[in-house]
């Protein structure tokens, strides 16, 4: 056999084992990766208009707290997530509202309005935001997020447009 160009029996076995093994590896490996990352490729929940309170209940220049929960199916379970924020009314015009998301822009804790310090305070890392949501103190990289799509419903409720994800 030596000296000839033909594949020896041993080499044939080696190459065949390598190819078959490689095929099995790919056939199982690719689906496995897809299986692992599948939840990361899913869409979140649905967008919706959510009512946060009566416009007439909101006092001018005094942050009005609101909260709501969204239920989503995650795998084999329904998970409800809470969201919250503050509506700051500026005038009699229902368009003249600033609706802040209470999620701190630093590391996602919930900020609370404090009358005493006239600011939103974050309990986690002492962040401080003004009534307009601007950063006064602490580590946050940007002002509080704003729900900028909102409307006044016929029965006097303020509704915000909630985008999922």
């Amino acid at each position: 056999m030596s000296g000839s160009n033909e594949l020896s029996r041993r080499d044939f076995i080696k190459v065949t084992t390598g190819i078959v093994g490689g095929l099995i590896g790919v056939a199982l490996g690719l689906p496995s990766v897809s299986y692992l990352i599948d939840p990361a490729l899913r869409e979140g929940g649905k967008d919706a208009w959510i009512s946060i309170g009566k416009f007439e209940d909101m006092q001018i220049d005094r942050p009005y707290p609101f909260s709501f929960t969204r239920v989503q199916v995650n795998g084999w379970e329904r998970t409800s997530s809470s969201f919250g924020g503050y509506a700051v009314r500026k005038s009699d015009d229902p368009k003249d509202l600033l609706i802040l998301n209470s999620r701190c822009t630093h590391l996602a804790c919930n900020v609370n309005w404090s009358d005493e310090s006239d600011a939103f305070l974050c309990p986690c890392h002492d962040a401080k935001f003004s009534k307009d949501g601007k950063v006064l103190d602490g580590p946050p990289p940007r002002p509080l997020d704003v729900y900028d799509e909102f409307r006044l419903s016929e029965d006097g409720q303020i509704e915000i447009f909630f985008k999922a994800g």
Partner: protein
Amino acid sequence: MWKKVYEWLDERLGLNDMYTNLLDRPEPKGNWWNTLGSASLFLFVLQGLTGIFLTVYYTPSPDHAYDSVQYIMEGVAFGWLIRGIHHWGATLMVIVVFIHLLRVFITASFKFPRELTWLIGIGLFLATLGMGFTGYLLPWNQKAYWATTVGTQIAGSVPFIGEFILKALRGGPDLSALTLQRFFSAHIWIIPAVLAGLIGVHLFLIIKHGESHFPTKED
């Protein structure tokens, strides 16, 4: 470049020696029945890998076990494939290990100096059956529930200590969340650890003694 890296590693790890002793070792003349040990090892690795992947979504709790299995089958990409391989691989492994055991018995390969290899092999066979028994409960469907009720009841029929065995298996007098949890623990930690350890010794002994040749008329 790669040759240098390989040589550096070889000097320290003995890769060439390993290759010669593990994969290129002399074998007596045999046939396909001699490959069942390797087939068992392959199935063990396959069951291990698919099993690890299943734990990513499976929940061993009576509240969620069934739903999480349904989710694996219908919700997750290729979940049906991973669980299918684990499901059928389990049956195949019991069959392959058992035929491997029969072959060793029929060719009298369990004799000196391989008695320990044989005894450890018996342990491996029992552990494989243990994997089948504990894994059967985990989907927490009707078949699983009643099969385990019956299985543990049979174990409970042992004279004198039967009731203790039954309670120890179930984690109490009834089939409950504790049963599911301890079967899960046994299925993914305890028995696999025993299997891996025994496989290590089994393989060491096979490499040490080499494979037995088929008995001849003189034997």
